């Protein structure tokens, strides 16, 4: 496939899985706004407004991760219930184009949530060129590793029901244990160690540092970036070598 055709495939997937389903079921858009906004609301109430910034930054990270959960079940559903992956495999569309297009299409659903958080981000005065750059970089990496992880898992599931069972584990590893909504120092020692095994922890630390919620030394920030990029690269490698594009 030429670059031009790849781009066309990618955009067609966004149309197929992102834009057209919204035409038939607009509630999809509300679905992904609901949980990060509920967290934001809790944090706002419990901290009496003080920790709102954690809710905003955590909300963005969580939204990007939910792209992964959605992707995982869509890919599994399409693969088993429609044999859509088989249709795509026997076509010029390569696996990275398919997964990339599907991951972009999931991003469409998260746009309302992201829009709300970006407005709050600007409104509360967190937006500086540096913080915005860190935020965009970290969120892109979260989106990337969530996509790679979701694709790999989706090719192992035998049925979409398995993804429902797995979703809570997915969230536990990627969103609950990692300190997305509070500083890592709030966690007991053992949990801090456990959280260090999740790439989300580093992304959260970076965005919290970027808006001054916690002090990050230059060295810590550099290490966080390296670890985050390393995790993402590792998940890409696992996807490239272990995901089942072709059935065994």
């Amino acid at each position: 496939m030429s670059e031009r055709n790849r781009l066309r495939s990618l955009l067609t997937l966004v149309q197929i899985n992102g834009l057209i389903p919204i035409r038939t079921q607009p509630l999809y858009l509300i679905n992904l706004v609901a949980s990060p906004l509920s967290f934001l609301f809790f944090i706002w109430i419990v901290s009496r407004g003080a920790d709102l910034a954690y809710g905003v930054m955590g909300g963005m990270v969580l939204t990007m991760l939910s792209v992964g959960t959605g992707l995982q079940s869509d890919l599994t559903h399409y693969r088993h219930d429609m044999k859509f992956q088989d249709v795509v495999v026997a076509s010029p569309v390569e696996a990275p184009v398919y997964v990339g297009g599907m991951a972009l299409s999931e991003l469409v659903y998260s746009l309302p949530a992201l829009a709300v958080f970006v407005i709050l981000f600007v409104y509360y005065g967190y937006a500086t060129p540096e913080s915005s750059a860190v935020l965009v970089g970290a969120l892109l990496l979260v989106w990337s590793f969530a996509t790679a992880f979701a694709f790999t898992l989706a090719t192992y599931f035998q049925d979409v029901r398995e993804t429902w069972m797995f979703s809570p584990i997915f969230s536990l590893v990627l969103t609950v244990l990692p300190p997305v909504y509070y500083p890592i120092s709030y966690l007991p020692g053992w949990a801090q160690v456990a959280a260090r095994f999740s790439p989300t922890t580093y992304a959260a630390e970076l965005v919290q540092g970027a808006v001054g919620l916690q002090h990050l030394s230059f060295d810590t920030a550099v290490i966080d970036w390296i670890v985050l990029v390393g995790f993402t690269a590792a998940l890409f490698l696992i996807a490239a070598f272990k995901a089942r594009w072709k059935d065994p």
Partner: protein
Amino acid sequence: MGFAIRTEHLRKVYPGAHGASAALEDLTLDIPDGRVYGVIGRNGAGKTTFVRIAATQLVLTSGSATVLGHDVATEERAIRTRIACVPQEARPLYFLNVDEVVYLYLKLRGLDPADARARTKDALEQLSLTEFRRRTVSRLSGGLRRRVLCAMVLASDAEILFLDEPTTGLDPIARRQVWEAIRRAIRERRTILLTTHYLDEAEALSARLALFERGRLVLEGTPEDLRARVRYPYRVTIQGSTPREELQSYGRVSAIEGGFLVFARESEARDLARLALERGLKVGLGPVSLEGIFLDVVGRSIEDEGPTPEVEG
């Protein structure tokens, strides 16, 4: 003319199928290009397994297979740009409408929008789907959904089309429309690998046929070749009461509504028909259909080997 697909000693054992026989065993086949190649066989014979290996969707266990001269195990990319497939259990995405299923599939394959538009219109017309073009897939009947998938791949620019039971659930008229579309694809010099349980369909469309049984190739050739290779190439139907034992000396007998069907060699078939006529019974005589061949060959292999063991997946 060259070969579109070639396999040598192809073998497939699904992972975890301990002790079970292979899904494909020692399959050596040459499939010519520019024709319909039909694959028939009972449920579980290995048809889908073969299609999926050739369509680069499934890993083979041993042996080799090439598609358009490229190895399915190592040169998938070169193959995939030139093929299209309707998997056996595929369903079109339910939230798209009929037009979108075809058009977006073509765009997904990289066709430019104007070309995709024209091909979509053409394919929908050919399969009488134009009146449904704005209808959402979830509101279509099962047969119409299947037709939409056929339209989708027939509209593509692929050189080889893999159609795994494309006409299952289609009404007789729709089925013939698909045949017509398949014949047109052949006129465009494309190759079609077709699996079907409709033996009249396999016979009407295929230049060559392969009959699979328990993962093995048991018969291969043109429909005429196949007929020449069976034990009983003629069928005699007899309506009226005759002792079955008497008929058994002529060939293989099975009971049908109001009489018997006998598969026999040419001379025995003539003798039997004459005898039945002398007794004033109603008689039909003719060469066996593909169905007759199938029943003869597969029936014999069942008798030889006992019931087909259930293979656990």
